[in-house]
């Protein structure tokens, strides 16, 4: 009674619906496997900036111009070294196919320098086309426009800070009030939606479409600016139209600066990935965590998701673990130890907690490198470097060995390991 006994079967089961898991699932499906993607929460892409970093800084802290050149100098234990440059290319090829024209950066191997809402310049490998006109390498004058009450984006501060961070273009920043009655603080999404559908708003000169009203408020501040940078809230589905309309009305280039969570570019990217999963025929189950598994003779047989207390089984011949790091809850830590909670994979870390943290918070932080240790085919290994299970691979933030926050390589790690783990799982399952 009530025991859910019939498992849902697929060739490959991917656990975790972030960038790494979605990439693995698509790669496995492209290798000919039937694929089930199990994810506890909605994808974390909707929180991410939407920038796709490959390698921004070397482990020594030097800014990277060409990530592929720099890769050769990475230490042997670095993920990119372990799985090889080809995996990185394959990961970015898959990404480029998913996003099509909505992203830029694939024309060159070099990093682009993208200004962020915090007023910093960030080296990144792919950036939304909505952001393309804002590159720091361009010298044409910029006007940054912020909104009253949207405190996360302070345009005069961003302008000053980018100049001192070395942006060569002349910059200015102004703060205007958002058209209509939309207060872009708690109701950011209301403004995004209004721009998306070009709602009409009432202004002092009567009612008009919100895109027109916005352009009208920006225009008096333009002066000699040839580019206008706004926080990334220019619509969701119709974002390219919003930008095109503003450019037409203002007669200059318009671009977005990627924002922190909740991130609109992240949401756009999430939509594209979900469509790509559907196109690849991946089956998705979202909303419940994987909490247990059965293994036999060194192979995972089945995993169970928790449905308010009852357990629902899923079987597959190959499994990919892509549950993320400490933030995604793919790694768990308590006062004394770190663990990987789904399969209990070995997570190397010093027994003494004092050694988890470096002395200088801005440099090397051992705990940032904690994660599951894998062999070259991405199988998690125990402390004697033997694979824990023959049919389990891991990808993305759950992997240890690299401090992705410091070297700006989070998405690159997910794409490269995701495509490799997914493809191997797909091929082995046939």
């Amino acid at each position: 009674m009530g025991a859910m006994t019939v498992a849902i079967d697929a060739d490959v089961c991917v656990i975790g619906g972030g960038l790494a898991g979605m990439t693995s699932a698509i790669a496995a499906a492209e290798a000919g496997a039937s694929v089930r993607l199990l994810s506890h929460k909605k994808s974390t892409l909707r929180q991410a900036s939407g920038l796709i970093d490959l390698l921004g800084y070397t482990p020594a802290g030097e800014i990277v111009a060409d990530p592929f050149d720099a890769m050769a100098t990475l230490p042997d234990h670095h993920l990119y070294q372990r799985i090889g440059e080809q995996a990185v290319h394959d990961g970015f090829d898959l990404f480029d196919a998913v996003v099509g024209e909505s992203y830029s950066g694939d024309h060159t191997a070099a990093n682009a320098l993208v200004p962020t809402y915090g007023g910093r310049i960030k080296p990144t490998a792919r950036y939304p086309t909505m952001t393309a006109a804002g590159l720091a390498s361009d010298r044409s004058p910029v006007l940054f426009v912020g909104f009253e009450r949207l405190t996360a984006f302070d345009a005069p501060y961003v302008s000053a800070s980018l100049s001192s961070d070395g942006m060569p273009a002349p910059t200015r920043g102004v703060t205007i009030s958002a058209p209509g009655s939309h207060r872009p603080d708690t109701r950011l999404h209301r403004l995004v939606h209004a721009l998306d559908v070009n709602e009409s708003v009432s202004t002092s000169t009567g009612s008009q479409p919100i895109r027109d009203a916005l352009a009208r408020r920006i225009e008096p501040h333009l002066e000699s600016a040839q580019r206008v940078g706004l926080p990334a809230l220019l619509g969701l589905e119709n974002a390219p139209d919003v930008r095109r309309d503003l450019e037409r009305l203002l007669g200059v280039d318009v671009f977005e600066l990627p924002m922190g969570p909740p991130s609109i570019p992240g949401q756009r990217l999430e939509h594209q990935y979900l469509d790509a999963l559907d196109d690849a025929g991946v089956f998705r189950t979202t909303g419940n965590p994987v909490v247990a598994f059965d293994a036999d003779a060194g192979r995972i047989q089945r995993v169970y998701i928790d449905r308010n207390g009852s357990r629902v089984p899923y079987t597959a011949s190959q499994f990919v673990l892509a549950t993320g790091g400490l933030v995604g809850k793919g790694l768990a830590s308590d006062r004394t130890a770190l663990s990987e909670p789904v399969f209990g994979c070995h997570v190397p870390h010093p027994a003494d907690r004092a050694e988890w943290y470096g002395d200088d918070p801005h440099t090397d932080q051992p705990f940032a490198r904690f994660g599951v240790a894998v062999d070259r085919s991405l199988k998690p290994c125990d402390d004697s470097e033997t694979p824990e299970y023959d049919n389990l691979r891991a990808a993305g933030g759950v992997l240890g060995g690299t401090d992705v926050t410091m070297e700006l390589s989070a998405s690159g790690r997910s794409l490269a390991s995701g495509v490799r783990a997914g493809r191997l799982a797909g091929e082995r399952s046939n």
Partner: protein
Amino acid sequence: MSDTDDTSSFDPVTVFEPTEQDLRSGSDDCYKCSTCDSVCPVAAVDSSFPGPKFQGPEQWRLTRKEDTEIDDSIMGCSNCMRCDGACPSSVPLSQMHNTARGAYVEQQRFASDAVAALRSGAFRRAASIVRDGVADFRERIRNRLLANYYTAGRFASKLPRVANAATNFGPTRWLLERVLGITSERSFPSFATQTFREWWADRGGSHVENPDKRVAYFHGCYANYNTPAVGKAMVRVFESFEYEVLVPQQRCSGTPMFANGRLDDAKRHAETNVESLAEAIADGAAVIASCTSCSMALREEYPELFDIDDIDAVSEHTYESLEYLRHNEDLDAVLSESSGDAEEYVYHAPCHARNQGLERQAVELFSSVDGVTIEDVGDSCSGISGTYGWKTEKYDNSMAIGDPMFTEMEAAAGEQGMTECPTCAMQMSHGTGYSITHPLELLADILTDDPSASSDR
């Protein structure tokens, strides 16, 4: 086996408050990422609605201070529960909303405050309490009426033809709109001439006896009073797999009551449901529901909001009907060898199915059936959210939220709609004019071609 009659009245109960501690740690878990705000369909169209982050963790913290009352905007939340599923930190948002809504409705009960003010000699204050209270009165009565669809359905189904004529009669609708604020833009659902329970009793109950395979059907209000065809399809499907179906005594699942802050009503109904379903579970049955909001209420909201004996057992043994079948029979294999009438379906996943992780189930199951095509219209909310879209002041928001779904439905190839949720079905048909079916109805057609069964429909 007819026990459609209401059970005798229950003692009024005080609502169980989730403990301070439960919600405090939930509130502390919020790291203000605003992901919840980014998925809220109401916040996207309603400038006056501050969004789930405010309604949940922030309001909870604010109202810890004495004299801080729950903000009126809590009644703008449609209880779609999308915010719940989106929060990366598992903050119990809808539990917080439900609790706040309950407290807000309590706070609106002005009479006792007025009397207290009078007693203490504060005549002005008493008068102002009464004045404010009367202004809210209409909304309270309307919400109470909508929340208690169970009672309305029970009366209407005694004289279904009269009820159908009366509820959609112009002057009645005008009155409902003017006096109570129930929109006249929508047509009321029609009441079946025979309720599911009447049909079940006529039929002599279950045609299968099987102590090893038993399910207890929670039909809820809608499949009983309005769409008994869904319940009959459920019986055909489960009997075709040799299940013994039980139809225990039951009242409203509570969904419309939670959404209108009527937690005490909901608890009264929950007590009957838990008692009789727990009995069925003790007899070896699993509880199945055909409405995804009902299964959501029994599984998730009950244990979050109430403390009733056996409530955890009921929560753990309740499933959506297809979900249960799929995990107990090799339904995927059966369906991939079946064929159905060539028909193109456009499917919308109700928010409450999404919240249970079931949003892809119907599409997955039916796309393997020969002849059937089914297209998912994407992840937008239908906008009706049960009683929300019935309120005059919410009607325009409701249609604005539903707009992307209508557009997707029209762009899809098929013109036969499908969804598990009865109010989503109303909205789908209201926005597009399509007829809407339940996955169980299609499944029954595919699995059981017994012509005698059609008399069951």
